[in-house]
């Protein structure tokens, strides 16, 4: 089935904001696009000419997180950490947080912030393990 306007099969762009990578998830994400995102982020970290100061994933436009997307988010954070980079999930909706807990997915070890501004502030306060700033 194709061509349903509310659904976005396109790849998710990874934007550079200074030395931070910012990813904004919106609407409904295809499984394939989520897997592609994991690959894109790790490539960007590994190939960046200057050390990436952190990854911020903006979830404020996301209506549901199931165990598939939850696992992808946890794996993005884990692989970024192995590449000396912190990941912060920003702006999760309250209904999504409540649902994730009942689903049994509390995503321990994932740093969170209430919005993107606070996530950026957290990264600037505590620079990545290269000790820059």
């Amino acid at each position, binding site marked *: 089935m194709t061509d349903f306007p509310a659904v976005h099969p396109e790849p998710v762009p990874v934007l550079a904001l200074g030395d931070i990578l910012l990813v904004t998830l919106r609407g409904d994400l295809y499984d394939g696009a989520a897997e592609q995102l994991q690959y894109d982020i790790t490539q960007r970290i590994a190939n960046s000419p200057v050390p990436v100061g952190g990854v911020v994933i903006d979830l404020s436009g996301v209506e549901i997180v199931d*165990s598939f997307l939850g696992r992808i988010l946890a794996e993005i954070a884990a692989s970024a950490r192995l590449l000396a980079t912190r990941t912060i999930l920003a702006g999760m909706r309250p209904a999504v947080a409540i649902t994730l807990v009942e689903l049994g997915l509390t995503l321990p070890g994932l740093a969170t912030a209430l919005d993107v501004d606070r996530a950026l502030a957290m990264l600037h306060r505590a620079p990545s393990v290269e000790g820059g700033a």
Partner: protein
Amino acid sequence: MHAPLTPTARLPIGSDADLAWLRQHVRQCAADLGFGLVQQTKLVTAASELARNTLVHGGGGHVEITTPTDGARRGLRLSFVDSGPGIRDVDLALTDGYTTGGGLGMGLSGAKRLVQDFVLDTRPGLGTTVTITEWVSGFPAPRPGAR
């Protein structure tokens, strides 16, 4: 005056595009029936888990969507149907963290927690049908056995 009754539908589950479309459709039905935001989110999340199981473990199938009534209550019922390998040990499959396929093993058990009614019918070698029903209620949604 009645809110427009959500029509019965049957949607295929054969690709990740179908999963995305199903989530949108269930969200819309739940909103039309007057479910609150948290209840909608739980139902769509459960539907996403079960539809992915139909796709990944059941080899594809379909979902039947109906809107049952029970006295004055109205509900949304989703049946996920496949003719895949079935589930040999249901208790094990419903254990948090148990997976045979590289997932997190939280889908089946988590979906059961997220909805009011959950019925799993499976025959090894013949297939699996999981039916969930959520009834319109105030916030917060009552848990099974809580009333």
